[in-house]
């Protein structure tokens, strides 16, 4: 049974600011449902006694010393920017943001 439907995909597309037409939503809903079902097989081997695992490798506390390292120059930083002005990235004005 599909755990993900067309409405979910439409919602995610909106959150991710991806413009998707009806055909794309239909196709993506179908494909994602297959993927979700496939991953669900994990639950068949992991019982209730196995906690959800985000980090399978038993590593912790990987820290960096608080020492300044190399940085990009202003020119380097802006190299990939579609547009810039005054040494800053220039972006369209976007309302409704944080």
């Amino acid at each position: 049974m599909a755990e993900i439907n067309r409405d979910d995909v439409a919602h995610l597309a909106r959150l991710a600011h991806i413009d998707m037409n009806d055909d794309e939503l239909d196709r993506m809903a179908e494909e994602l449902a297959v993927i979700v079902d496939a991953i669900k097989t994990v639950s068949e081997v992991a019982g209730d006694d196995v906690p959800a695992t985000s980090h399978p490798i038993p590593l912790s506390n990987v820290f960096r010393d608080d020492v300044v390292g190399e940085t990009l120059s202003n020119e380097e930083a802006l190299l990939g920017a579609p547009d810039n002005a005054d040494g800053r990235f220039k972006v369209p004005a976007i309302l409704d943001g944080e």
Partner: protein
Amino acid sequence: MTAVTDEVLSFDEAMEKYDPVLGFEVHVELNTKTKMFSSAPNAFGDVPNTNVTPVDLGLPGVLPVVNGVAVESAIKIGLALNCKIAEKCYFARKNYFYPDTPKNFQTSQFEDPIAYDGHIDIELADGTVFRVEIERAHMEEDAGKLTHMGGSTGRIQGAEFSLVDYNRAGVPLIEIVTKPIEGAGSRAPELAKAYVAAIREIVKNLGVSDARMERGNVRCDANVSLRPHDRETFGTRTETKNVNSLRSVEHAVRYEIQRHAAVLDSGTPIIQETRHWHEDTRSTTSGRPKSDADDYRYFPEPDLVPVVTNDAWIEKLRAELPEPPAERRKRLQADWGYSDAEFRDVVNAGVMSSIEDTIAAGVSAAVARKWWMGEISRRAKLADVEPAELGVTPELIVELNALIESGKINDKLSRDVLDGVLAGEGTPAEVVEKRGLAVVSDDGPLLEAIDGALAAQPDVADKIRGGKIQAVGAIVGGVMKATRGQADAGRVRELILQRLGVEG
């Protein structure tokens, strides 16, 4: 900028009808040398987009690494807020799309903050203590800085485009979240200000943040809701964003209480939304709608491994904590023997540490207070600077006081000496010498001045002869005037009484 002005109820009327519930999210920028997840400098005011690495710009293939000092700072803040420290916690991605975050997510913490379940006791101006419960304090990173261009006011409305500086992106932040604060009543605005002041003081005292609000080192989002007195469930809240001075926090909370009350009185529901604070009009305007289910699709950050703490580490950090500011104040007040009112004035004038240093340098608590609350505060006010910024050292006060106590100068002359020292004319003793400021201690010229003063006020002289000793002040005043303050007032008094044949 807004055409529509919201209706507000008077604060007193709002309080008669409703009970405010508050909640705060305070963001504290740490003063580590580098950012939270990259080795770029954490510095204010540099050339835009120079304190950046590929990690801060969210370029493909980069890997973040956690700043160990920032983690220790977070634990220290947690301990100072009486929090429990998580044995194990993770970082999480908070996904949103806005140009201030080039990665399209903010690295934060979600279900398991590093510190949780704490409290701090907030002392209001009249000494009332109010306990604020802390829900959590978690680690995250700051966003880049947007400047909106093309609009007439520099605000986002009407802007044609925005310029982005990512120097601030990735600066370590600790977000401190309170539990709902109930029962503050009409003290709510005052408590709001005092709470943010206390957080600022704590992080500054810990040395983990520069805590300069004007630079955005400490930023407050203030949640306000109202409910009728007889109701227990909370009303709908609004969140006023980025209220960035202590005064604004107080005003914003007061304003939102008054605005909510008017809305509720009109029978319409409060819209759950963010509000923007405008210092110029001391009012808020509607931001964006905000639901409790803002969908950030949090998930565990796969590129960062968990932070695991242990008792030995936590206790080592606890041992490094400085004395909490509130306890330090209690101790100093007891040591110095100041009254509550005197001590509060000292704290409000920002001279507590200066007085502490001055006493340590070798004068009494009373003398230190006299200088810092008197002459130095007066000069600071005139120059519009903090008293500590005038360049008056504890050693200078000790020297001036020694000159007064030895009778070489009096209080009045000491101000002229201070002028000279601050003008670079040398040590106090040298200034006394150069400016000829020593007290006139030779009785000859004093007696001459006394006779003059007595002759000028014969009725007063008669009163003193008749036993009204307290009238002597008028004559002393005349003598001090005649000697341009260079007389020892105590000696003048003695001489006047002798002259008139009265027992002091």
